[in-house]
């Protein structure tokens, strides 16, 4: 993970990069399609146990996407973004923003997914750079040595990212 050894600046504290590589036993065209076809996307987007009652995709560069995830307890977590690059079936670049219940952004991400053919299987590499949005409340609590990245007001929205473990 980038930045883990340098926490001195605001940038490295609140912006991180994550890289995940997976090999899927499916042809590259299908894996790629699973990201841009809303019927497919709604079937797998989000943590375990979540459903996606709203899944809208405008699959062209500059087009937007929007997914509302529903947790097993019924609470909903919207996220959205804009496609920056769509090169079928090899590369997908988009922004991704997670919101709290009132539509305030809590996390601002930029994600690149590449798809490589490996003898009929597909090697997927996901590179995502995300910034946790830090409001004023954090500086008020600045005296606490707890490595604040988010205000207490917005922490609840983060449930979307962890609730998957409930299942």
């Amino acid at each position, binding site marked *: 993970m980038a930045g883990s050894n340098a926490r001195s600046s605001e940038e490295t504290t609140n912006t991180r990069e994550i890289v995940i590589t997976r090999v899927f036993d499916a042809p590259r065209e299908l894996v790629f399609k699973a990201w841009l076809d809303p019927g497919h996307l709604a079937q797998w987007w989000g943590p375990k146990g979540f459903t996606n009652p709203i899944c809208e995709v405008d699959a062209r560069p500059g087009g937007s996407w929007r997914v509302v995830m529903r947790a097993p307890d019924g609470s909903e977590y919207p996220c959205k973004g804009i496609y920056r690059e769509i090169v079928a079936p090899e590369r997908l670049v988009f922004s991704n923003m997670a919101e709290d219940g009132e539509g305030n952004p809590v996390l601002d991400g930029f994600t690149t997914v590449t798809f490589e053919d490996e003898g009929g299987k597909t090697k997927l590499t996901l590179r995502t750079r995300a910034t946790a949005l830090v409001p004023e409340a954090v500086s008020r609590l600045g005296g606490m040595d*707890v490595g604040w990245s*988010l205000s207490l007001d917005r*922490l609840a929205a983060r449930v979307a990212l962890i609730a998957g473990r409930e299942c």
Partner: protein
Amino acid sequence: MQTDHLSTTFSALADPTRRAILARLASGQASVTELAQPFEMSMPAVSKHLKVLERAGLITQGREAQWRPCRLEAGPLKDIADWVEQYRRFWEQSLDRLDGYLKALKRKEKNDGRKQRKK
């Protein structure tokens, strides 16, 4: 950390009065009376909030009979503040589900193919 533990923390944080209490405790321990003061709340109402915070492990209350000071416990907050881990988990789990979904599609295709041949 257990998830139900995390959920408890989140629901404890969902209330503005409880967040204000935590913010107050961030600057040092305080008695229940001191905590009640700025909120113009009854002592039982404040005690109720404190109980929720205590159950979530966010505060501890001293056992001294008279003044029983409350103090902030940073542990659960530290866990929650680790948003990077949560963000990674979001993607890991989404990709797990994508894998499962692609496998299901493949099985379905195979079954459909078999049906086709039988005809």
